[in-house]
């Protein structure tokens, strides 16, 4: 996108700069990390996502291309998120917004980005609607989604005998999507859903909901929530003797930071699905150590790793295109295969879904762990072509 101002501003530079820079709006690629910086999801994305973005920019051979980084807090409120996005796009000339945990906010920004013809790389949000009925030619959903979580975790649990479920669901876009996608997997595999209860976001006390789940006598209590809600529910379930009573918990969306907060004695044995774990290979370990050094010792979650990986691929597409027009860059990103040290080789599909393998993990016993952040055993690797929802089932209008 050219504005008059940007042409004049770029003119003196154009002599020295390569042709590539002349097509970049304002001569600068501006990346905005929009995340929850202060509330329950800020350990999942938050400041760590900014660290990951900074590392991605530093690691990329920009060859003189100017890249700037901005960040802001959307407070988990869709209205706050969309007004920051508008300000960024219109006034600050931001080219791409990255991360955005909280599905309701991400869905709002998905809309704004499309209106403005910019680019949106989702790492933090989960709703599979972002590549389903709400899919957009300006959005790529990078790290994970509710369908993938439901499919990975739900399948594994139903197949090992957990065939009756009760859902404790966070009452907003993300929780409802996660519950819907998991319920579909349970029913498809011959299981049944005995009941569900919806709790407000950021509920402190789960005892009432746990008691209802206990009374349902379901074998599996599915926690369709995230962050502090999940950790509080798991902690209080132990207190009410739920697991001792023969019921099992399924954390449908659990992050490394949650396990760190819970401690292994409370979290051991939990099974869930992630697309990134720092201890996969030498490259992920190397990244995690560098990241931790810059992030007060905290290791990266899959959301933060996703920010790194998505920005790397974005910069690759900008370089190949020699321009940063949002719609064109996203199209280019879908054209180029993805390849980075964290998620390995993969592709981005026409509906905006990035495809890479997913890992079914089990939390180690305290005796098995060598120290902080040594938390997971990889039980199974789900290949990229099976980990995500088939293209035909999403109902994305871009798929013809």
């Amino acid at each position, binding site marked *: 996108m050219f504005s008059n101002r940007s042409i004049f501003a770029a003119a003196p530079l154009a002599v020295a700069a390569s042709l590539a820079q002349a097509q970049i709006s304002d001569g600068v690629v501006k990346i905005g990390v929009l995340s929850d910086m*202060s*509330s*329950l*999801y*800020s*350990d999942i994305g*938050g400041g760590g996502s900014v660290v990951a973005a900074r590392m991605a920019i530093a690691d990329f051979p920009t060859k003189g291309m100017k890249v700037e980084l901005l960040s802001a807090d959307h407070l988990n409120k869709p209205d706050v998120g969309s007004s920051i996005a508008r300000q960024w796009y219109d006034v600050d000339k931001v080219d791409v917004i990255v991360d955005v945990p909280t599905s309701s906010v991400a869905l709002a920004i998905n809309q704004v980005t499309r209106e403005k013809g910019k680019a949106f790389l989702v790492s933090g949000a989960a709703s599979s609607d972002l590549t389903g009925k709400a899919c957009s030619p300006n959005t790529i959903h990078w790290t994970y989604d509710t369908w993938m979580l439901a499919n990975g975790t739900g399948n594994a649990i139903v197949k090992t005998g957990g065939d009756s479920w009760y859902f404790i669901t966070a*009452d907003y876009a993300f929780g409802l999507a996660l519950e819907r996608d998991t319920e579909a997997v349970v029913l498809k595999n011959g299981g049944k859903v005995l009941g569900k*209860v*919806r*709790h*407000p976001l*950021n*509920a*402190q*006390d789960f*005892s*009432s*909901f746990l*008691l*209802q789940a*206990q*009374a349902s006598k379901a074998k599996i209590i599915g926690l369709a929530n995230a*962050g*502090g809600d999940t*950790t*509080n529910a798991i*902690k*209080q379930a132990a*207190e*009410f*003797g739920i697991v001792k*009573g023969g019921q099992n918990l399924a954390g449908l969306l659990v992050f490394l*930071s*949650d396990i*760190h*907060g*819970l*401690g292994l004695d*409370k979290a051991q044995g939990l099974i869930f699905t992630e697309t990134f774990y720092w201890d996969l290979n030498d490259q992920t370990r190397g990244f995690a150590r560098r990241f931790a050094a810059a992030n007060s010792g*905290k290791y990266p979650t899959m959301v933060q790793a996703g920010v790194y990986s998505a920005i790397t691929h974005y910069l690759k597409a900008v370089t190949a295109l020699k321009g940063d027009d949002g719609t064109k860059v996203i199209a280019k990103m879908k054209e180029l295969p993805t390849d980075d040290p964290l998620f390995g080789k993969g592709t981005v599909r026409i509906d905006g879904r990035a495809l890479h393998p997913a890992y079914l993990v089990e939390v180690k016993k305290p005796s098995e762990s060598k120290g902080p952040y040594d938390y997971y055993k990889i039980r199974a690797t789900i290949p990229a072509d099976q980990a995500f929802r088939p293209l035909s089932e999403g109902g994305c209008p871009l798929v013809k």
Partner: protein
Amino acid sequence: MEIFGIPTQALFGQLLIGLINGSFYALLSLGLAVIFGLLNIINFTHGAQYMMGAFCAYFLLTKLGIGYWWALAVTPLAVGIIGMVIERLMLARLYKLDHLYGLLLTFGLALIIQGLFRNEYGTSGIPYALPQELAGGHNLGFMFLPNYRAWVILASIVVCLATWFMIEKTRLGAYLRAATENPQLVQAFGINVPRMITLTYGFGVALAAFAGVMAAPIYQVNPLMGADLIIVVFAVVVIGGMGSIMGSIVTGFALGLIEGLTKVFYPEASNTVIFIIMAIVLMIKPAGLFGTQR
């Protein structure tokens, strides 16, 4: 047997859970009521002080190896002293001004304290183990009651009633109440009113810290644990009548119960029901259920 499609057994369980949450509301709103009733300060730092209580227990355990029971005694003292320093250095300058200034100062302090803790400890929370003596629980037939939760109800009732007794029935309480009505006159009788006010603020803060220690084993020790609770607790105080000691205790428990029932019949509304009640009470009885017009 069923009531509105919910088995009575399940209902008993939910009522008991409501009572447990009500214990926290009562403890916290009591501290607020003491501070407002006697100092006329709307203490918005209360949530942060509750959080500091939980963190203090955590520090005592991890840094000094001091367990839960000692923490229950030491923490209110330590956080209470911090509260008294805040009162002397900052709040004491605002007594002559409108309530609003105290509210703004304490609100700002709360944001600063929470921000500092969040910066250092993130938002995932830190685990704090249940004390060994209170691990496990009993099957009551209609529900499994963890021993710790039973202890929460018991301790909260004892602390609430002791506070009420001290303020309403003892000589010290009489001095306090008199100092609120007419500080000059009480001072003229040779009582050090500023010191009494400082101690009262410290006591209110200590109640918040006590609730924080009680909460640590149940919830994650989290920099934001007080931020959400404080709004609800304020609603409790408003419903009970600003500054009414008994009002805040009774309403704390009662609203816990009502919230518990909402979680069964219409869980989606469980975080708004208290505010709906607040709005209704304010329309019908603006001074609150137990309050008197000043």
